[in-house]
């Protein structure tokens, strides 16, 4: 190899873009290689064999279609029988697969083995001819002249003005995509929680006694008033803001409390918004040994002992804490609404 050099940057050929018209290369373009006949070109027996292969594939297609009918009619309506549904789905799938693959592979094999395999050379047309370009340019000039738009700027300017304004209604008309009465970001500051609202289990709606919660347990809770909201959509929207996770920990595990939050817990019970402050997934996983909360969507991890501070992951703020206490009957209630908006950060949040 040594005597030939290794094609370093300054040896060998430099062939710049577009110059590669064969003359610059080490050898001239030798033209198409000679055609090599296939077995089926030379031997009629081989051609016959290819014919039988193709027909066999077409027959498989017919069998596939029959298999589909069997799956559809013989298995019938499965009405909740999951075993039969699985069988039917498999038969339909295999049936269509055989029906289609039979035709497809058959035709491709037909093309490969029996249709001519001579490569053909076709010239590329130039994308345009200079004479055509000149003629087209002249045509356009004539058209522009005939409109007189260059001579009459008033026409042009008013047309531009009109054309700029005319599409606006097409944008404005979408204003009522949100026709809520309380339109605007202000509504995101409030949830259904207020003083005295009981925390009830999600989804059963049973109220929770502080004494029902053992140390280490976690309960998904919603406001008792949620069931009074009429309308599926409204109820889901309220629930999407109000869902809460209740945790009972050993009271000694809590880190020192931020001033002003001293009475937000009840004994070892602490409540937080279940809506992740990252992009809003439910923070649903609780690990009792480490008292960490994990959001399964993007793995933001919050520490319940430190007022739900972020200890890992993409969340940018702690989970809002819900102040709670118990009522006369010993059921857990909210002391107030959340003191900050729940869920993902938005521009107007402040």
């Amino acid at each position, binding site marked *: 190899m040594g005597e030939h050099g290794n094609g370093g940057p300054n040896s060998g050929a430099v062939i710049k*873009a577009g110059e590669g018209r064969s003359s610059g290369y080490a*050898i001239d373009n030798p033209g198409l290689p000679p055609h090599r006949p296939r077995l089926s070109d030379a031997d009629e027996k081989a051609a016959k064999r290819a014919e039988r292969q193709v027909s066999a594939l077409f027959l498989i297609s017919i069998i596939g279609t029959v298999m589909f009918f069997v799956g559809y009619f013989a298995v019938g309506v499965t009405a909740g029988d999951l075993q039969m549904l699985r069988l039917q789905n498999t038969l339909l799938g295999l049936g269509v697969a055989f029906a289609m*693959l039979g035709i497809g592979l058959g*035709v491709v094999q037909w093309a490969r083995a029996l249709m001519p395999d001579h490569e053909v050379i076709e010239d590329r047309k130039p994308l345009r001819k200079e004479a055509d370009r000149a003629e087209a340019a002249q045509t356009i000039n004539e058209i522009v002249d005939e409109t007189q738009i260059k001579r009459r700027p008033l026409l042009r300017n008013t047309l531009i003005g009109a054309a700029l304004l005319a599409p606006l209604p097409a944008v404005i008309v979408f204003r009522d995509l949100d026709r*809520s009465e309380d339109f605007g970001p202000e509504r995101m500051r409030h949830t259904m929680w207020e003083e005295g609202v009981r925390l009830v289990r999600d*989804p059963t709606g049973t109220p929770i006694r502080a004494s029902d919660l053992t140390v280490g347990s976690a309960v998904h809770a919603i406001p008792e008033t949620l069931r009074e909201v009429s309308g599926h959509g409204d109820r*889901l929207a309220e629930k999407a803001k109000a869902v809460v996770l209740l945790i009972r920990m050993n009271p000694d595990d809590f880190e020192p409390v931020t001033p002003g939050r001293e009475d937000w817990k009840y004994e070892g019970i602490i409540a937080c918004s279940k809506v992740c402050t990252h992009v809003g997934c439910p923070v649903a996983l609780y690990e009792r040994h480490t008292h960490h909360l994990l959001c399964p969507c993007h793995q*933001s991890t919050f520490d319940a002992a430190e007022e739900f501070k972020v200890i890992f992951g993409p969340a940018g703020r702690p989970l809002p804490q819900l102040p709670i206490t118990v009522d006369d009957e010993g059921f857990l209630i909210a002391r107030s609404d959340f003191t900050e908006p729940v869920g993902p950060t938005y521009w*107007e949040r402040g």
Partner: protein
Amino acid sequence: MSTQSLESKYTEEQYSEVDQYQPATRTGRIANYVDTRVGGTGMVREFGRKVFPDHWTFMFGEVALYSFVITVISGAFLTFWFDPSMASTRYDGSYVPLQGVEMSTAYSTALQLSFDVRGGLFMRQLHHWGALMFVMAMAIHMLRVFFTGAFRKPRELNWVVGCTLLLAGLGAGFTGYSLPDEVLSGNGLRIIDGMLKAIPMVGTYISFFLFGGEFPGDEVIPRLYSLHIFIIPAVILILIAVHLFMVVTHKHTQYPGPGRTERNVVGYPIGPVYAAKAGGFFFVVFGVLALLAGTFQINALWNYGPYDPSPVQAGTQPDWYIGWFDGLLRLMPGYIGDIPLEFVIPTPWGGNSVATPVLVTFLPITALLLGLFVWPWIEAWITGDKKEHHILDRPRNAPGRTAFGMAMMIWYFVMWAAASSDLIATHFSLSFNDVLIWLRVLFFAGPILTFIITKRICLALQRKDREIVLHGNEAGVIEMLPHGEFREKHTRVSDYELYTLVAYESPEVTPARPNAKGKVGLLEKSRVRLNRTFFEDRVAPVSREEYIEALSHDDHGTPAELPAGSVGAIESRKS
């Protein structure tokens, strides 16, 4: 005004010929009936024997097209049963575990489609697999076009159409994914809502307008449905038409090889060979998708339950093409040490929040997608190449582009893998935090390493090509010379194989060109820097002189071993 002449360009015979022709056969009569009304003759003349180059890598565009057609067909079937309403209903279908559960009509009709319509489950799975295949085939097709340089002049605009198709495909996929209104897709929408809200100034309102109020409301599914079954497919169809029209205008590119030039197309004629292969291939794609739909379960939506903002499953994954958005959300930390990245801009009206951890993820997304669209112009600017190209590059012969493309692919794959960081951790019993931290390192280091390694591999492959050209292939025969030296025999390759190895463009670094004022501007300087990274370490193709020199030094390749045709050609060249 002058009077126009009534003389026609065509003779009277040319007009009357049309009526005089009497077709002999029945088929001929039908063909003639159509032809004299819509003029099919021209089409057959133009397209009947049009030549298409054949190569297995040209198949992915076809796969994408056919998957789309199959997705449209199966999707049309689904629309007959699916009702995108978010009105509340109580499920009374045949799937026992959900009987009596309150849910939206959308979810209950999706369940009905799966359990109570014969073939409904099959069609749903066919639709989902078809959609996954559609986006995947588009992505691979684009990689093929990128790495072979097929996007270069005159095909830049068709590349842009292709990029738009990819985006439309993502849109179609995501809107469809969200329609069944179960917990999985609902949480997907929840994430979209969170990302929208992070957009400064307008984000909150975009979210309100999309959901018709606060998330989730009861408007979003019908709206996504309009987008999914009407607007986006219409856009895709129009773009496909434009895309194919341009393919016909440009004619297909071809790989370098004997007989191929910038001025011709070598391949098989449409009728019958290419039509049969391409037409047959539609059925093959259909068959493969049917096989997947019949044997591999996808999106078992009855397991998730109706959407409710409270529950969520661990280990859920989005459809693959959404993965990298989700992965980015995971990669970006919310805090660096104890310093939160989120902050509030103090304003008289109470401050505005900047959701940095979410907003930063928009940067790589924009960079990658925007870069995709404008790459043909960026590359032309770096290389200074303004010529037409119809012969493709073998990826090794464009080391700069190939290395850059691979770097971007790895970057994408890191983001994509990050979407499964939790599953990687649980499957391989690793610490989740470690997996994510390593992915963060790879996010920055991966593309750089990939660039360097890929470029070296390309250069090594080019050197290998040079060795084959100058030296021949190793014959696998060890011979002993009279004086005792052992040596491996080499056989020269034929001119046909040789031509593929030497026929490629290999530009050198183009030095900075001063502008009209005689100065080298900043832009030009950065162009030259990029040009250097592209072309500095070049392995030059074998020149004619080197090749003739090699032949004359050829002491172990006797003329008898040369292919018959090439000796004469070389002899004549020497003289």
